[in-house]
Structures are given as structure tokens and as C-alpha cells.
């Protein structure tokens, strides 16, 4: 965001309004959107501290204090879904953050432009698919008669009901996430790679650095700002692990590993109607998410001097 303008150069409000009222009028509807559908729900979280009656007031009926928070802190299911959220979030970060960098570096080494463009076009494609389609594909590939089980059978194994076993869920979730996001994730890195100064490679070569050392000492530092920015953004979405995909892929048999905070609060709140309880869980989740992004940003500003704002 822009640096604050010195007070003396600011236009007084009245003059600004008279001069720019047409511009301000264009902002009215968008602001109405933000207030109604973004900020009002934030205030709506107050029902986490109040008794909510369906059909009653948007903000609940009477105060209940921390009752709902105490409820979920003592709820064993909550701690199980909390752990699952952390595990899935961490796995997603560990795989989906570095793999685009690796793929971008590999693509960057391709001399044949047609081949490079072809690989790029193909690898971007999954990004454009609805999550429903990805889930449907996963179910087909992993069904008893699907490709994966055909391979299992080919090496003499017994077919596995992958979607029915809690032990497989994390692998399935993370690999389908990698499948859908890695190609698209290379775009920013490829752009950053073209900005790395060619003279630096020249200098490194004269100093006797081989290709590998050039990559390590020139290329990677060159794209570090992009890496840090994307890492912070990734950390920001850490808690919001793919709610929609899990909702499509999980079932009661895989709850032990698949159920995360967002799916749990969906079932508690919307399916079972305990809206206040679910709002308390949701608020807890949002606050952790915000804290994560703020601390990641602060740490990166101190250590590498890159920050989001």
C-alpha cells in the first residue's frame, strides 16, 4: 500500500468530495458488497458468544459467554479434526510449495521452445477443472476396477478399496492436490526466472561454478522474493485446507484422517443445525489463520526483507 501522504498535501474532505463525487459514487455498490458480504459476516461471528435461534435475529438471542468455546475445547472430536487439519495443511505445504519451483527450474532448462510451451499448456490444464470433476476423476482412478488397482493386480497384489481406508486418505488428498496445482504454480516462478541477470551467470562461470552451483548461487537467490511471497500466502491458507475437496472425497470410514475443522463445522453447523457451536469453531479457525499470515509476514520482513505489505 502507498506510503502515507504528508498531511499538508492532502485535499480537505469537502473539496475532495466536491471534486471527485462521481468517482466516489462508483465505489458505492462495491463498498456495499464488502460491507454486506464480508464485514457483516465478521460481525455475525458474535453468534459464537450468543444463543442463536434459526429464523431469529442474525446476531443471536442472548449472551452465553464462552460456553461454546468451552464445549469444543473439551470435545475430543474437535482435537482429532484439529490434528487432521494441521497434518493435511503441513503435507500440502511440504509438497505443493516446493514442487512448482522444481518444475519451473526444469522447464527453464528446456532449449526446445515448442516442447516447453507444450509441457506448460498441458500442466496448466488441471487448474481449470472444477473440484467436483477432480474428485470424480480421483474416485474413478482409485475404484476397484480403476487404473491404480489394475497396476496393483499387474504386480500380483490384491485390489485395495482406497477410498474406504483412512490410511490412504492423506496420500490421495496430497497427490491430487499436486496434480491440480503444480503446473499452474510454475507461472510466477517462470516469470521471475526470466528476470535473473544473465551477467551473474557469466560471473559465476568465470569463478568456476558448474551448472548446479550456478543454479544454487544465482538462480535460487534470484527468485527468492517470489518464493518468500508465495510461501507467506501458502501459510495464510494453511488452516483452510481444501474444504470442498475433502467434502467430496471423504466418508465416515475415512473420518479418522480426513475430517478437518472446516468439514466438521459444516456438519455440526449446517447439517445438524448447531450454528453457534459451529461459529465458535469457525472463529477460532479464522483467528489462527490470520495469526499465521501476520507472523509469517513479520518473520519474513525481519529475516529476508520481503513482505506482503
Amino acid at each position, binding site marked *: 500500500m*502507498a506510503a502515507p501522504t504528508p498531511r499538508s498535501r492532502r485535499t480537505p474532505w469537502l473539496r475532495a468530495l466536491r471534486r471527485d463525487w462521481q*468517482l466516489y459514487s*462508483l*465505489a458505492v*455498490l*462495491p*463498498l456495499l*458488497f*464488502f460491507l*454486506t*458480504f*464480508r*464485514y*457483516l*459476516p*465478521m*460481525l*455475525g461471528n458474535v453468534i459464537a458468544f450468543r444463543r442463536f435461534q434459526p429464523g431469529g435475529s442474525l446476531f443471536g438471542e442472548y449472551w452465553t459467554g464462552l460456553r461454546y468455546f468451552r464445549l469444543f475445547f473439551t470435545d475430543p472430536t474437535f482435537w482429532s479434526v484439529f490434528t487432521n487439519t494441521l497434518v493435511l495443511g503441513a503435507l500440502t505445504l511440504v509438497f505443493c510449495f516446493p514442487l512448482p519451483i*522444481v*518444475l519451473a527450474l*526444469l522447464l527453464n*532448462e*528446456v*532449449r526446445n521452445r515448442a516442447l516447453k510451451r507444450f509441457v506448460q*499448456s*498441458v500442466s*496448466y490444464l488441471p487448474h*481449470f*477443472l*472444477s*473440484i*467436483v470433476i477432480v*474428485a*470424480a*476423476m480421483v474416485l*474413478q482412478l482409485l475404484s*476397484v*476396477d*480403476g*487404473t491404480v*488397482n*489394475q497396476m496393483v493386480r499387474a504386480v500380483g497384489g490384491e485390489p485395495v478399496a482406497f*477410498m474406504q481406508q483412512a490410511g490412504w486418505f492423506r496420500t490421495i488428498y496430497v497427490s491430487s492436490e499436486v*496434480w491440480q496445482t503444480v503446473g499452474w504454480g510454475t*507461472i*510466477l516462478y517462470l516469470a521471475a526466472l526470466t528476470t535473473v541477470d544473465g551477467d551473474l551467470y557469466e560471473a559465476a*562461470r568465470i569463478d*568456476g561454478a*558448474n*551448472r*548446479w552451483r*550456478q543454479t544454487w548461487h544465482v538462480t535460487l537467490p534470484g527468485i527468492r522474493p*517470489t518464493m518468500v511471497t508465495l510461501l507467506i500466502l501458502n501459510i495464510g491458507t494453511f488452516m483452510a485446507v481444501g474444504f470442498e475437496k475433502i467434502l*467430496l472425497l471423504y*466418508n465416515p470410514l475415512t473420518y479418522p484422517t480426513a475430517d478437518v475443522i472446516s468439514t466438521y463445522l459444516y456438519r455440526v453447523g*449446517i447439517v445438524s443445525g448447531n450454528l453457534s457451536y459451529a*461459529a465458535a469453531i469457525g472463529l477460532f479457525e*479464522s483467528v489462527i489463520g490470520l495469526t499465521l499470515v*501476520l507472523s509469517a509476514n513479520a518473520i519474513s520482513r525481519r529475516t529476508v526483507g520481503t513482505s506482503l*505489505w
Partner: protein
Amino acid sequence: MVSTQARAQARTRKPVARPRGPRPTRGYRVFQVVNALVLTGVVVVTLYPFLTIVARSLSDNAYIVAGEVNLVPRGFNLTAYRVVTSDPTFWVSYRNTVFYTVVATLVSVVLTTCYAYVLSKKHLRGRTALVGIAVFTMFFTGGLIPNYVLVTSLGLKNTVWAIALPNAINVFNLLVMKAFFESLPVELEEAAAVDGLNTYGTLLRIVLPLSKAMVATMVLFYAVSFWNSWFAAFLYMDRQDLLPVTVYLRNLIAGATDATQTGGGLGSAGDVVQSAATIQSVTIVLTILPILAVYPFIQRYFVSGIMLGAVKG
């Protein structure tokens, strides 16, 4: 993959030339071959699911059940296509998807353009606050439950507005468009002002005609995301005849998984699940088709849009 690269490099003792340099060393040539193989692997893994779904959609049930269908259709037939395309519900949901996408995209593009234009005016008093209002929502949201309560109590359930309004402005798209407007030369609008055009006139007659590519990018960003969305409709549409095609497909999958569970899982699940597999494949193919048809043309816009957004970041 990195270790392969490292090994290929380790084999060469001498300083290695950059690829653009005169003579690539043997180690680097080995790496090039390995790299080409890895990237071919990426292409195969990415495309395989599409091809196998197409093959399954064209195959006979018996072969699918026997686990003999992977890339080539076995027992080629179009029965499943006939079944799906003769289901009126499928066409109703397809029509709903088109309708929701058009309405929601229209609302989104208009609101995003207006706000981005305002935010791009550096001299505007209160601009920083207006930007902040938008950016803050990227990092903190009300969450599912308050949104659900809000949309329900506004009476938006079972209307297109339940899909269009809650996600009308995507802040990333907003910042992309703002960055674009900021890159336009100031002189143009000064000239417009001299010619007596007011703000609305400048936006409509001068700025937008210069921003056709940007507006097209926005239309694509929003249209693809609304076309693909399912959860809002799943949450707020109670009637079968209001569901978009994504939810139609979701219900098919859910039906199939339920059948697997009640059927006792492996083997014994039998025909219900298997016929659902062909039907599912056909529905997947028919849902992806429009996206695939426009993909070669829209990909370019997406990439340039992402870049523009990243510059602003």
C-alpha cells in the same frame, strides 16, 4: 528430480557452459535427456486421467467391471452417452450452469471494474482506506456459518443471487485490474477532461475501449470460477431443477459412494456402482468439454492476468 540434476552435474569437473554458450558438456547433455524424460512423465501423468475417463465413457460395462479399461475403450458403445443426454435433468442443470455463470460474471465484472477504477486514482482522498477494506478480506473472513446465516436471512436461498452476490468481487482480480488501470497513461484522461467528459464518460468512452483485453481477462477469470463452482449451489439450492451441472455430478458421485458403502465394498457392490461408473465418466466428459474447447484460447489471458496481479502482489 533435483538429485538427478545434481548427479548429472557432478560428473563434469570442468566449469560448465551456460546452455546458450558454445559447447554443452557431456554431463549437461545427459541432464537434458533426463529432463526431457521427466517432463514427458509430467505430461503423461497430467493427461492420463482425462484419457482414461474418455475410454471408460465409451466402453462396455462388463470390461470396466473386469478392470480391463485403461486408455483404449473396450466393447465400444455410446449407450451411456445416450442415457445421459436423454436425461432432462442433465440438460436442466446444464442450462442452470450457463444462466448462473452469465448473471454472476456480469455482476462481478461490473462491480470489479468500478471499484478497480476508483482505486487506481492516486489523487483520490481516502484511497488507502478503500484499498485496505478490500485487502483485509483476503486474510480474514467471516467464515462459513455467519455467511450461511446471512444469505439465508436475506432470503437469497433458491435464487441466482445466492451464487452471484456473496462472491461478487474477488480481491485478487480487483488488484489485477487496478494495476492495469494504473498503467494507463494519465494524459489520456486529462485530454478527456479537457474535452468535457465527466468521470462516467471517461470510463465508458476512453478507458474501457482501451481495456478490452483486460475486461476479457476478467470475464474469463470470473466465468471459469463460476462455471466450476458447486458449493454455493449445493448449500443454497433446495430444488433439483435449480442445481447446476457440478452439483448434478456431485450427487452422482455421492450416490455411487453411498452404494459402495451399503453394498459392502469390494466385489459384491455389483451393477449399481458399475453402471454409475460409465454414467459418471460420460457426465465428467460432457462437463469438461466446454472448458477444453475454449482452453487453448483462454490460457494466454489467464497467464498474463496472473503476471499482472503478481507485479502488484
